[in-house]
C-alpha cells in the first residue's frame, strides 16, 4: 500500500519540490491581474464612450440652440418648420409623470409582495413565486407597450371618460407593473438576508409576524430596499418602448395625466425611427436629450450609491 512511500521512496515533498517553480505558474500569476484589470477597465471605457458619443453631438446641438432655451424652455416643438422650439422641460415633465405614476403603483405592491414572500410565504411558495415574478421582469418592454395601448388604456377609458387614447396614466401604470418584480425581488433579497436569528429574537418576545416584518426586518433591510426602489426609478426613467407606444408624442409642460405626453426616451425613438435628416438640428437634439437622460439616471444612481453607503445595515 502506501508503505512503498510513493514509489522510489520519494516523499510527497520531494515530488512537490520537483515540480516547483514551473515557469508557467509564475507568468500566470503576474499576467492574470493585468488581463483582469483590462477587462475591468472596459466598463470604464464604455462610460467614456457613452459620454463622448453624447457630448460631441450635444455640443453641436448647442451651437444651434441656446442652452438656456433648452434647459428652461417649456415648449418642445422641434418639428415646427418655421419656429422650432427645444424646451426640454416639456419632455422632462412627461418622463417624470410616467415615473411618478410608476412608483406610486410599484412601490406599495412591490414591497407588499416582498414582505409577503420573505416573511409570510412558505419556502415552497417563495421558491415558486419568485421566479414567476422574475419572468414578469423579463417580459420585453415592447410586449408591455402593446399591453398598455391595447388593454390598459381601453379599460382606463371606461373608468375615466376624459382619458385620451395617449396619456401618461396608462404607460405609467404599466411601467409600474414592469418594475414591481424588480422592487419585489431586490427587496425580498434584502429582507431575506436579514438573519433568521434576528427574527427569532423578535418572535420570542411575543411579536406578531407583522411586527417583526415592519419593526425589525424592514428597518434592518432599509438600505437594500431603498436602493431597489431607486434602481427601479432609474429603470422607469429610461424605459422606452412602453412610453413610445402608449404615451403619445405631444410633450407638454403641465400636470395632467390624462392627456398625451412625450418622454425623453420616446423622443429619441421617434427621431431614430423617423425621417429627421442627418445633420439637422433635430438629429443633434436626440443626443442632447440622451445626454440629459444620462445625467438623470446618473443622479439616481449616485443617490442609490449614497443611500446604500450611508445606511448600510450591519448585523
Amino acid at each position, binding site marked *: 500500500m502506501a508503505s512503498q512511500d510513493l514509489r522510489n521512496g520519494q516523499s510527497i515533498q520531494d515530488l512537490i519540490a520537483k515540480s516547483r517553480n514551473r515557469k508557467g505558474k509564475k507568468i500566470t500569476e503576474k499576467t492574470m491581474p493585468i488581463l483582469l484589470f483590462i*477587462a475591468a477597465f472596459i466598463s470604464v471605457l464604455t462610460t467614456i464612450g*457613452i459620454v463622448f458619443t453624447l457630448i460631441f453631438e450635444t455640443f453641436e446641438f448647442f451651437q444651434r440652440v441656446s442652452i438656456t432655451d433648452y434647459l428652461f424652455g417649456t415648449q418642445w416643438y422641434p418639428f415646427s418648420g418655421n419656429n422650432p422650439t427645444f424646451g426640454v422641460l416639456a419632455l422632462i415633465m412627461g418622463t417624470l409623470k410616467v415615473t411618478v405614476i410608476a412608483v406610486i403603483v410599484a412601490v406599495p405592491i412591490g414591497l407588499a409582495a416582498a414582505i409577503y414572500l420573505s416573511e409570510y410565504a412558505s419556502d415552497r411558495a417563495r421558491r415558486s413565486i419568485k421566479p414567476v415574478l422574475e419572468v414578469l421582469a423579463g417580459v420585453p418592454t415592447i410586449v408591455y407597450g402593446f399591453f398598455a395601448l391595447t388593454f390598459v388604456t381601453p379599460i382606463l377609458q371606461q373608468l375615466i371618460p376624459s382619458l385620451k387614447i395617449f396619456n401618461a396614466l396608462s404607460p405609467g401604470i404599466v411601467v409600474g407593473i414592469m418594475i414591481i418584480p424588480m422592487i419585489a425581488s431586490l427587496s425580498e433579497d434584502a429582507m431575506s438576508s436579514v438573519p433568521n436569528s434576528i427574527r427569532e429574537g423578535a418572535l420570542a418576545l411575543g411579536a406578531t409576524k407583522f411586527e417583526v416584518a415592519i419593526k425589525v426586518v424592514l428597518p434592518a433591510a432599509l438600505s437594500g430596499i431603498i436602493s431597489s426602489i431607486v434602481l427601479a426609478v432609474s429603470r422607469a426613467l429610461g424605459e422606452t418602448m412602453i412610453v413610445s407606444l402608449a404615451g403619445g408624442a405631444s410633450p407638454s409642460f403641465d400636470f395632467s395625466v390624462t392627456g398625451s405626453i412625450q418622454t425623453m426616451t420616446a423622443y429619441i425613438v421617434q427621431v431614430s425611427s423617423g425621417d429627421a435628416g442627418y445633420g439637422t438640428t433635430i438629429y443633434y437634439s436626440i443626443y442632447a436629450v440622451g445626454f440629459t437622460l444620462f445625467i438623470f439616471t446618473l443622479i439616481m444612481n449616485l443617490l442609490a450609491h449614497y443611500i446604500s453607503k450611508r445606511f448600510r445595515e450591519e448585523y
Partner: protein
Amino acid sequence: MRYIDDSVVMKRMKTRLNKNKSWKALFLTGTLFALLCLVILLVRIVTQGIGYLDWDFITSFASRSPERAGIKAALIGSIYMMCIIAPVSMILGVSTAIYLEEYAKKNKINDFIRMNISNLAGVPSIVFGLLGLTIFVRALALGKSLLAAGFTMSLLILPVIIVAAQEAIRAVPKEQREASYGMGATKWQTITRVVLPAAIPGILTGSILALSRAIGETAPLVVIGIPVILRFLPDSLLSEFTALPMQIYDWAKRPQEEFLYVASAGIIILMLFLVIMNSIAIFIRNKFSKRY
C-alpha cells in the same frame, strides 16, 4: 412595580393579531396582483398569437402576407446574437468581478471602477443604442452586423453580470480561500480551483437572467437600425441579421390587423425563449443553493 401590565397586554393582543391578519391579506393581495398581471398578459398574447403559431411559422422567413410570415430569420438571428453576447459579456463580466473581488486594492482607480459599474447598470438601454451606433456601427465600421449588435448588448448587460458574479464570488466563504492558501496555493490557483467552482452556479444564474434581458431589448436595435426585411441567415460575424424583438416591433406596426396576431405569435416564441432560459437559471440556483 411591574411595568408590563398583563391585562393591558392581553387587551392589546387581539388588535395586534387582527392587524397582523389584515396586513397579511394585504401583502398577499399585492403578490397576487403582480401574478395576475402576468397571467393577463400571457393569456392575451397566447389567445392572439396561437392561431399563427405552427412549425411553418418557425421555419419560414418573414413575408408580406401574414399567413406565410415566419420568424426564422429573427429567431436564428437572436440565437446567433446570444452566441456573441454570452461569451463576450461573461468573460468580461467574470474577469471584472474577479479583479474587483480578489485583486483590486482600495484605491481611487478601483473605487472609480466600482462606482462606474453601478452607474452603468442604470444607463437606459436606448443610450447604449446611441453608443453602439456611434462606436461599433460607425467608428469601428462593423456595420449593422451581428458583431456590432452583440457587442452593444454585451456592454448593456455587462454591469448586471459583473454584479451577479461579484456577489457569487463574495459568497464563497473566506475559510475556503484560507484553506487553499494554507496549502501553498497561489492566488490564481485559489481563484480557478476554489473560488470559481464554488461561485459558478451564482454566476450562471445571474448571467442567464441578464442574457434573457438582452434578447428582449428592442430600443438599442431600433437605434442601431437593424434591418427587418431580409430572407437569409447570417453567415459570418459581420453579416446583417434581424432579431426577435425587432421583427415583432415591425410586424406590430404593419397596417394589416393580421400582422398584430403574427406579432403575438412572435411574442410567444420570445417568451418561450425567456421562460426556458429562466427555468435553467432557476434549476441551477435551486440545485446549488445550499452548499455550505
